[in-house]
């Protein structure tokens, strides 16, 4: 039974999560995949809508969805319902005092607000560490994928796809997955202020948050 939200914030319970998973798919394995797919889609929704913390917003959306199901709300179109909640979360975030503050900062400072001057060296340092953590074939793939500019880049990617026996789309997807892992790794590394923060590529949704 889920803990009802009174004054306190509602927390996702095991039973509420199970109910949500069961609605996604009766098969437990496929339900877990569907959950990850829905979470990714919601994360992208917040990302492309410009939210500052897409992962956090997606988790909040899924929590609310689980809560509504646990409370017995009749939901015909689960993903459509989730998107409706996501829009509400987005709106709430946009209206929050912090968002107002950020918006004001953006208006005053433009699209490139000053940040700590050493961000760029830190980024490169983290990127090096994260690249080193990749399996050699993934590292070689991503570095070759990003070589060159314009026409040469297109030609190089076509040659790379041919060498690996992949279609252009399959190569792009593979590179994208590696890049997404790198992005998460670099973000976690850059967020860790300590110099001994070791880049890690292990995916953990909990680690992706701010």
């Amino acid at each position, binding site marked *: 039974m889920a803990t009802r939200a009174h004054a306190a914030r509602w927390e996702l319970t095991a039973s509420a999560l199970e109910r949500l998973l069961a609605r996604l798919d009766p098969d437990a394995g496929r339900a877990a995949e569907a959950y990850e*797919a*829905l979470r*990714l*889609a*919601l994360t*992208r*929704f917040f*990302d*492309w809508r*410009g*939210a*500052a913390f*897409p992962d956090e917003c997606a988790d909040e959306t899924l929590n609310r969805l689980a809560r509504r199901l646990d409370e017995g709300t009749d939901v015909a179109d689960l*993903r*459509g319902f*989730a*998107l409706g909640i*996501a829009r509400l979360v987005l709106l709430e975030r946009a209206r929050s005092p912090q968002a107002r503050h950020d918006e004001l900062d*953006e*208006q*005053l400072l*433009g*699209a*490139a*607000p*000053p*940040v700590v*001057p*050493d*961000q*760029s060296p830190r*980024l*490169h340092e983290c*990127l*090096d560490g994260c*690249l080193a953590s990749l399996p050699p074939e993934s590292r070689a793939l*991503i*570095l*070759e*994928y*990003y*070589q*060159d*500019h*314009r026409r040469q*880049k297109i030609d190089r990617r076509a040659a790379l796809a041919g060498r690996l026996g992949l279609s252009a*789309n399959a190569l*792009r*997807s593979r*590179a*994208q997955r590696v*890049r*997404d892992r*790198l*992005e998460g790794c*670099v*973000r976690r590394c850059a967020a860790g202020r300590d110099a001994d923060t070791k880049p890690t590529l292990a995916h953990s949704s909990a680690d992706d948050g701010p």
Partner: protein
Amino acid sequence: MAPDIAPAEVRAYLLGALDEASAAALESRYVADPALVEAIRDEEDALVADYLDDRLTAVDRARFNRHYLASPVHRERVALARALAERAAATAPRAATAPSFYGWLAMAAAVVLMSLWLVARPGPAPREVHGPTPAPAPSPSPSPSPPPGVPSPEPAAPSSMRAAMAIALSAVSVRGAPASPAHELPAEPVDLLLRLEGTPDLADRVFDVEVQRVDGAVVWRGRVRTASRGSGLLATAAIPAGTLSPDDYVVVAAAGGAERGRYSLRLRAPRR
């Protein structure tokens, strides 16, 4: 790209140019179909690559700067893509290929433009208050000798005069400005003289100028004197050779702690 998604529609969505009803419809589709999420992510990747490769139209570039880069997550993504491209370029085996015809043409054009500026400039640029600019950094790679018929680069300048390239920058309104033209760097390192257009206040004596990358990292900071009244300039900032690489920058001029001008600067690598 999935067959039932139009790249133009996706780009419009990512650039905030899609009407709300169409955007909502697209979101309904991709939340219901994981394959579409991946397809849109592909298109986003291509969009960022086009931005970094300077292949966007002026309109899309302005939208990218105004809308896409308004998100801190997107700024990180672009910074990472740029860093990754730099790292990839650094690890790429050096091909011993001859420069293309267009590369030579661009180099010759850059040399001619640089020479013209050195001859035609009306007077010395305002001196920077914070001290002399350091000597130009050595070229990271040996420069190829020009082919027959192409003028040699400017001969070594006397110690008091270094090769420089002047770039006039018009102030932009915050986040809503059209894309500025890209300035191609010459093959040889040169000082960059950024002529910041505007009208200084009577009380302005100096300007604090910052050159920032799009991700906000400050790559150069200096204090420069106010330009002469009636010149149409706030100030001219001399950026030592080798400080700025091909990239997109935001230049901010402030006086007394208040921003007086914001400029967009795009530098392009010399064509090889």
